[in-house]
């Protein structure tokens, strides 16, 4: 990196300029269009089912940002979606379809909790010990998530096993094995529920700014920091260029000296590391112990939608996560205050993804309606 600030600045400007070319507007347009259209369809379904769509729309808003509680809840989901979304984006960008973020976050989460529980007896109580354990837990999660994702990476790179299928299978396997362990060997005798031991006092992220015990602004900060690191890494480093180029055109990347197999494994590992972090944040910030993973939200799957909505751009993942966080958050409110079956929200999310997959549709629509000018 150049240490002349002027040059650095100039270079950054150029990067920004390239990122923000017309196609970025187009992508934003597509994202907004997809979401809008999907919500519209959702509202039509609500109306067709005999409920008041306006009321439903209002409840979506109130349930996500209508009160401090709702807003904190939205941010809590957003934090998880950002991390999981970045995990997906890293892989998709590099042309590797990691559908296994859910399994990797489960493995990361349990590794986090176990490492903390194992080490806790050797660490002094108190804030310093707690912080140390927290760091250990995050580290363990990153390592475990990375390793668990490296496996399908290796299978793809060296054995040609389709990663879409293997990662889906590994999701089932992670959830099954961890579920079995949490219900059996890892379950303390006095536990009423299916869970591990509680994390020791002092482990966790302090509740600053918001009083919600299950949300810490530090968690959100961590997620945003990961976004920053990944975004810079992708655009400003050789490794990032190798990865992204492999995603665009593997043959050209290979010819330019990129080792395709190693890149696939590295990509999966990196993606899994971030996914592992999701599990750690879930365990440390929200749960305080680990539960049967079949009871954990499907952040890893929803993250696919998040990432796609963001066109697999790590920075774009942030607004997309806010949207998904809000939708997820409003689910609770809708449940309580509306008769509309809450599964509708999952369906709407699916439609968003479907539309995001078909940018051409929106180009066509834009052309028909004369919006968005002459693109393409």
């Amino acid at each position, binding site marked *: 990196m150049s240490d002349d600030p002027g040059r650095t600045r100039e270079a950054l400007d150029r990067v920004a300029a390239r990122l923000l070319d017309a196609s970025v507007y187009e992508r934003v347009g597509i994202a907004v269009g997809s979401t809008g259209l999907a919500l519209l369809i959702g509202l039509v379904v609500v109306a067709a089912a005999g409920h008041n769509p306006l009321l439903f729309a209002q409840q979506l808003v109130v349930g996500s940002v209508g009160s401090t*509680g709702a807003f904190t*809840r939205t941010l809590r989901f957003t934090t998880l979606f950002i991390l999981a979304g970045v995990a997906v984006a890293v892989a998709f960008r590099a042309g590797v379809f990691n559908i296994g973020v859910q399994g990797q976050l489960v493995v990361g989460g349990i590794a986090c909790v176990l490492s903390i529980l194992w080490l806790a007896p050797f660490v002094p109580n108190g804030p310093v010990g707690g912080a140390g354990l927290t760091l250990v837990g995050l580290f363990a999660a990153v390592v475990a998530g990375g390793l668990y994702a490296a496996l399908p990476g290796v299978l793809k790179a060296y054995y040609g096993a389709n990663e879409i299928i293997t990662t889906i299978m590994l999701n089932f396997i992670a959830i099954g094995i961890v*579920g079995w362990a949490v*219900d*059996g060997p890892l*379950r303390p005798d006095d536990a*009423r*529920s*299916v*869970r591990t031991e509680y994390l020791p006092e002092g482990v966790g992220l302090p509740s600053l700014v918001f009083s919600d015990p*299950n949300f810490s602004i530090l968690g959100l900060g961590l997620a945003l920091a990961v976004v920053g690191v990944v975004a810079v890494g992708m655009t400003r480093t050789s490794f990032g260029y190798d990865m992204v180029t492999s995603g665009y055109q593997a043959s050209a990347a290979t010819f330019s000296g990129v080792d395709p197999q190693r890149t696939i494994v590295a990509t999966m590992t990196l993606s899994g590391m971030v996914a592992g972090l999701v599990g750690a944040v*879930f365990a440390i910030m*929200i*749960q305080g*112990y680990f*539960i*049967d993973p*079949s*009871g*954990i*939200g499907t952040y890893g799957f929803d993250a696919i939608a998040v990432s796609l909505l963001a066109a697999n751009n790590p920075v774009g993942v942030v607004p997309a996560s806010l949207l998904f966080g809000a939708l997820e958050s409003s689910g*609770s*409110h809708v*449940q*309580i205050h509306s008769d509309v079956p*809450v599964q509708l929200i999952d369906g709407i999310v699916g439609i968003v993804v479907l539309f995001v997959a078909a940018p051409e549709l929106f180009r066509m629509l834009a052309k028909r309606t004369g919006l968005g000018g002459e693109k393409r």
Partner: protein
Amino acid sequence: LGDENGGGGGDQVAIISSDAGFGDNAFNDNALEGLEEAADEFDLEVTQVEETETAEFAARQEDLAEDGSYDLIVMVGYQHYEGLAEHSETYPDQYWMLINDHVEGADNVSGWIEMNNEMSFLAGVAAATLTQEEIEHDDSATDPDEAVVGFAGGEDIDLINAFEESYIEGVEWVDDGVDVLTGYGGSFSDSEALNDVATSQFDDGADIVWHAAAAAGAGAFAAAQDNDRFAMGVDSDQSVADDQYADVILGSAIKALDEATYQVTEAVVEDDWDSVSGEQNLSIEEEEGIDFVVGQEFEGELPDSLEENIEEAKEAYVAGEVDLTCGPTGC
């Protein structure tokens, strides 16, 4: 209590499902049924919250408590315990009802422990009794010469293992010589998998299969119909709830959850919380807390040995002569 939130006609109560969700025709629906009955009776409004992610249980409890408009919040399933242990303190003025567990020292919680082990024990007694009898109904029949019964579980987890173990102990209490075939479908939603488990057991000689698989249990009933054998229901009288299969449901091992939710709601409405506060039990010892009921198409058709054995088993249990290995939620 609750007079100040006068909106929307009558007072409000809420219920949060277990991770199996409503629509299981068993556990959750049974609890809901009692609540709705009470709601009719006392002009209440019931808010159903279906939450299938256990990780979100605590948050749902908080959402409802924070809202402040619910006179009673009912939670189905012991997985709610962790969250409630905290929230019963944070919201001391909120009345809570927990099904399947109780919170020590929290007198705003009415904690109902349902003795699943006792219920399973009775199911075992019934199955072992009936397999040796000659029963014919529509196309189905038992094979009285062979004494084999089946157990078909949903997920292979500690909770259901306790059902299995207690069922076997019930069978053995009647007759050591009765074989019990067991199997798990691996899911509470995959009825086809449970169908396969039950059919495999019917093939291997079982003439009665009892399921503990929530919604997927329908697969066991369908299997009984296809194989001209019998099945038994769980939690509530499933010959009523699942009347499509009434012709093969000999009976159901039940727990009076609906009674319990009704009773607690009534206590709230009549300002008599103390009567339900703290640990409550749904057990054989309580009047009709745990029981075995004959299926609606089989009333009066089953041999007297069934009622005799069930009554005898209950008495033996109350007298402390039966020692079950497993507790209500695990071994």
